């Protein structure tokens, strides 16, 4: 075997002898993207870790939590005043605190998403040019009012009382929907959420597809991160944008191919374990008296918010 070793492999001096300096390597968009992708694991782990803690909401049967969640989303959407929405916000805050969630991490996520999808989306409606109303903060005075197609631009453009009320209501609705959803997500294991969707008559086949998809997102995120490490191990410089794009395209094709193969293998594994077209889920433990009483308190709270003026 020794005689087969090519001469270049016997030369140990070929590697660059100058070790330091030469400027710094910028992190490419590819690396940033892969890092973001790898954050999926951490996120998934964080959800699993948080959902496996102990508190009254963690211990509550997932089916009751799903019913409570759906009821609360309906109540949040139906309320047309700021006060009940603010009360729901405080109620959710109290629940999150009682569940000993990290409130800073929890509300950082809720507030960022609430700002983007609630406040920013609703912000233009604060102006009287969009929604007519009583101006409380004038911003711009034009020489005269303008008429344009179906729009009327008033002479004084400013923030209206009605606009502020609409923004507050919409932002609070989004914040409340997000906080109640994150609360359920952080106190319930993903597998339990999927099984509990049975109570709203989501078909088993659909549920198994969701759970397998969720699992394979992590599997493929893992594969992509590992492939990136494998490339990094052989990369002695900076990758050009074009080359990075080629690599991504190649990897998408590879992951697609791998998905196809994996799909066939999973189907064979299902057949070998008796699958014959109908999926049967393992169903739940019985709902205990404690679950019923906690559930009734939560549902009573939801109804109280519904009738609150």
């Amino acid at each position: 075997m020794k005689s087969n070793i090519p001469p270049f492999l016997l030369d140990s001096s070929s590697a660059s002898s100058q070790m330091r300096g030469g400027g710094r390597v910028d992190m490419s968009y590819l690396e940033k993207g892969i890092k973001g992708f790898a954050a999926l694991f951490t996120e998934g782990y964080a959800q699993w870790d948080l959902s496996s803690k102990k508190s009254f909401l963690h211990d509550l049967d997932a089916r009751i939590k799903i019913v409570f969640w759906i009821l609360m989303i309906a109540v949040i959407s139906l309320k047309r005043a700021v006060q009940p929405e603010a009360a729901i916000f405080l109620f959710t805050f109290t629940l999150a605190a009682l569940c000993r969630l990290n409130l800073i991490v929890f509300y950082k996520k809720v507030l960022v998403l609430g700002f983007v999808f609630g406040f920013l989306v609703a912000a233009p409606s604060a102006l009287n040019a969009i929604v007519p109303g009583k101006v409380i903060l004038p911003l711009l005075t034009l020489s005269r009012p303008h008429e344009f197609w179906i729009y009327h631009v008033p002479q004084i453009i400013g923030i209206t009382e009605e606009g502020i009320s609409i923004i507050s209501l919409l932002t609070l609705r989004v914040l409340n929907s997000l906080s109640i959803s994150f609360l359920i997500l952080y106190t319930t294991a993903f597998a339990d959420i999927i099984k509990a969707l049975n109570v709203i008559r989501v078909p088993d086949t659909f549920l198994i597809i969701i759970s397998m998809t969720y699992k394979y997102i992590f599997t493929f995120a893992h594969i992509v991160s590992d492939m990136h490490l494998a490339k990094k191990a052989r990369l002695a410089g900076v990758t050009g944008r074009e080359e990075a794009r080629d690599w991504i395209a190649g990897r998408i094709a590879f992951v697609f191919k791998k998905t196809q193969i994996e799909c066939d293998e999973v189907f064979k594994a299902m057949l070998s374990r008796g699958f014959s077209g109908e999926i049967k889920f393992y169903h739940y433990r019985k709902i205990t008296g404690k679950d019923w009483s906690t559930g009734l308190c939560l549902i009573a709270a939801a109804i109280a918010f519904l009738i609150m003026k």
Partner: protein
Amino acid sequence: MIQVRNIHYSYYQKFAALIDVSLGIANGEKFAVIGSNGSGKSTLLQILAGLLFPSGGDYLFHDVAVTESTLKEKKFLRFFRQKIGYVFQDSDIQLFCPTVIDELLFGPLQVGLDREEAMDRAIEILKMLKIENLKSRPTYMLSGGEKKRVALGSVLTMNPNVLLLDEPTNGLDPRTQVFLMELILALNEAGKTIVIATHDLSLVGELHSRVAVLSEEHRLEKVGTADEILYDEALLLKVNLIHEHIHYHNGKAHSHLHSHYLFHKH
């Protein structure tokens, strides 16, 4: 050449993978890291390859600390990646080019070799690995053994001084295993430093290397010669690399320590 001092690593800041591990590897040495599944062998190898960074402790390569920051220095990055080649346990993730020849050319072109020299290297490696017939084949159409050869070849074309091999013989047929072992020994004789992570004691015996043993608690239990480690029954039992095995001889059941290597004795 390689110095690891009191390194710690944990996944998601929760699951410890390495706790207070210190070791040194000299130039041209054969070195094996052994331990049961999940003991941290692959993590240690990935740290040595500069792919993961320890949360505590130091890793020095040629007396330069290998950190995220030093690996952003262009010259050190090139020096480091040229000197250290890492062969992954799963060849599938390592092979990312369209064909076998593209795979072999990727590394040399990255380190700045001209196309002709890179092609010469790739052809020589194809011959050495006896895979000339696979030159234009897509990598997903290779068998497990072929993939392993191409993965090793893709690193060898960069002519690294250190070869880090993660479970190199896992899942390979006996003939390919022998081929790979002979190749690894020949590369070591040619001056390459070989570092292998494995739980296969027979591989350690054949390699006759210095050995570091990782425990199931992710700590370094012992570093010694292959003989010192392989004949230390108590140590191997403790780190779960040998086990009590019951079987029949002439219709009589009996038990003994079993490792598929040294301790299958009656």
